């Protein structure tokens, strides 16, 4: 029987591992569909930023209440997962609480820490569910927060609660069995939080408790395997890993700096009879600016997978606050959804397949793009350093340079710059007339 359980466990673990591996390869492949961009510089500064933003969650603490609750879930996730090592080894080796004899009197201390965190995870997740579904915190709504994104969030919170409850129940029954002196349930010392649940189980028979304890154990471990696959398959919860990668590769230059398109530099230099370095951007790109996800950089695409749809960006966006259609969160979610679609198309129909759709137009409208003030409030707000402005500007570039489409007032501004060297219709010869004011 034990051997059978071990085999089943190993098979399940392998399936779960393979599922996660497949998801990661899919996501990696999709991200690499983006244009090249060098972010391999300044590794030390990048590691520092990652530690501060992802590990230290610096930006989360702008909102103290969600920050503290989120910190418990995050710490719970990281630390309770240490317990997963024991659980997985128990499963493979057919042992029970493998580490208990090695850790001795330290073992109950460790388990008590896990239990405390499990309890805080449950409390935090319940508060989060209330904030989403009863209090209706505004940033969790919006046009982009349709059925699936809202359900996704609730499912994640629900699963986390169930997993933690199973963990505590399992420990409670284990202790009742320990008290009974049952078989291999060796005495470990008290687990304070789960022992509060002991009362529920003390009247059950030993064989039932063993069955129920094992059921909780299996529910917990299979739940964790399922949850991990759920997260990697197609969920906003991917941010638990992406936060680290994304903050590492985040922009180190000032937020106000937009990149200068090297392919344009070359053309402009030729037009102005300036010397052109041969290395600069040889082989013109298919198009100027971005029409679809493959025109964006891999970093933009990485950003899209890092988004956990918290809405801090949209909450700070001046355009969104004043009722415009633009929502930076929608820009990120659209980018990810379209990228997933393009990835599927390539897998099914090959690389050259064109489904006649594009990010610009079918997902993101011109009206949204035109509403952006490039104020960087969204960039500043994002706890994982996502940059929606970069995507917006690249889509604008396509509109303007490839389709020559802009509002009429922008066209006059542009022709004024071209003809008068100023965005307004003034003669360049009058540019210095302001100094006349000083002569009076």
């Amino acid at each position, binding site marked *: 029987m034990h051997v059978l359980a071990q085999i089943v466990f190993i098979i399940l673990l392998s399936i779960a591992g393979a599922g996660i591996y497949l998801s990661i390869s899919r996501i990696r492949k999709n991200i690499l569909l983006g244009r090249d961009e060098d972010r391999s510089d300044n590794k030390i500064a990048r590691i520092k930023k990652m530690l501060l933003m992802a590990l230290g969650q610096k930006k989360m603490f*702008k909102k103290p209440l969600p920050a503290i609750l989120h910190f418990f879930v995050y710490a719970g996730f990281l630390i309770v997962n240490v317990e997963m090592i024991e659980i997985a080894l128990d499963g493979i080796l057919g042992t029970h609480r493998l580490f208990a004899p090695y850790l001795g009197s330290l073992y109950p201390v460790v388990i008590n820490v896990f239990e405390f965190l499990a309890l805080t995870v449950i409390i935090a997740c319940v508060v989060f569910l209330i904030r989403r579904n009863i209090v209706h915190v505004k940033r969790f709504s919006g046009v982009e927060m349709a059925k699936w994104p809202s359900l996704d969030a609730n499912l994640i919170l629900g699963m986390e609660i169930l997993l933690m409850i199973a963990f505590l129940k399992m420990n409670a029954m284990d202790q009742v069995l320990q008290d009974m002196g049952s078989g291999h349930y060796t005495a470990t010392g008290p687990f304070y939080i789960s022992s509060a649940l002991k009362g529920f189980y003390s009247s059950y028979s030993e064989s039932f408790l063993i069955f129920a304890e094992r059921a909780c154990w299996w529910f917990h471990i299979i739940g964790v395997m399922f949850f991990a696959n759920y997260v990697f398959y197609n969920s906003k919860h991917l941010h638990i890993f992406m936060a680290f990668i994304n903050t590492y590769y985040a922009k180190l*230059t*000032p*937020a*106000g*700096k*937009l990149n*200068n*398109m090297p392919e*344009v*530099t070359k*053309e*402009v230099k030729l*037009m*102005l009879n300036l010397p052109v370095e041969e290395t600069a951007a040889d082989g013109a790109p298919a198009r100027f*600016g971005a029409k679809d996800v493959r025109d964006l950089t891999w970093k933009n695409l990485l950003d899209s997978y890092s988004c956990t749809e918290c809405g801090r960006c949209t909450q700070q966006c*001046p*355009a969104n*606050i*004043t*009722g*415009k*259609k633009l929502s930076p969160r929608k820009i990120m979610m659209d980018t990810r959804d379209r990228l997933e679609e393009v990835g599927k198309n390539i897998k099914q129909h090959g690389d050259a397949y064109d489904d006649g759709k594009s990010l610009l137009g079918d997902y993101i409208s011109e*009206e949204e793009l035109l*509403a*952006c*003030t*490039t*104020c*960087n*409030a969204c*960039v*500043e*707000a994002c706890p994982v350093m996502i940059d929606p402005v970069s995507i917006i*500007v690249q889509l604008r*570039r396509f*509109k*303007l*340079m490839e389709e020559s489409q*802009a*509002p009429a*007032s*922008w066209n006059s*501004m*542009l022709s004024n*710059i*071209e003809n008068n*060297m*100023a*965005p*307004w219709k*003034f003669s*360049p010869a009058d*540019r*210095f*007339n*302001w*100094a006349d*004011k*000083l002569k009076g």
Partner: protein
Amino acid sequence: MEYNVPTVAELKAQGKSPEIVFWVGCAGSFDERVKSVTVAFVKILNHLNVNFAVLGTEEACTGDPAKRAGNEFMFQMQAMTNIEVLNGYGIQKIVTACPHCFNTLKNEYPELGGKYEVIHHSQLLQQFIDEGKIKMTEGGEFKGKKITYHDSCYLGRANNIYEAPRKVLEVLDADLVEMKRCKTTGLCCGAGGAQMFKEPEKGNKDINIERTEEALQTGAKIIAAACPFCMTMLSDGVKNKEQEHNVKVYDLAELIVQSQRL
């Protein structure tokens, strides 16, 4: 006082070169309201005998609105033309009162061959204060008056300059009050990203109105700005709220000129 605004070309003809170029910007050159800011800043520079010059008619739009609207060609044409002029004169250091010019010159020109030390006028004013060249006017006309400072996105979030403008306001001996959304969470005036040059998209409110309401809520009679576009947007907002007789929008340089009676 005799005011002196040399151009870089004039200095060159005399075999001289300025320590720092004052980049006036298009708004500072052409916009009636913003021209007063330009004049105020020149008064300060003259008063402190700063060896500066302007480019005069040789200056051209940095290309910021073109770039942010999406026309990278036009931006780079402007940038390269300006860089040719600046490099031709061997310019090392630039100060500007426009955060958009500041951001573009400082962050986007270097890759295109324009490498200068670029500072915003709030930073230069702070330097004057630190050096004791501009001193606090105790009991001056601003004493005890409420002033609120509106963060320009292109100074603040874009370039992390939050303290210099506030330090400048401190010498007024005024009562500096912050809006609810300030510094890193400061609300945009609505003009950035080339919005200055088009009508806003459809919504339920204009951004400058939202921001002006917030500024008025502080009870301040003076809204301090450090950006020509913010100044236009907030002045329009104050007019829209019919508060133009009670509440004034001033640039930092204008406030220094008033308090120092230059």
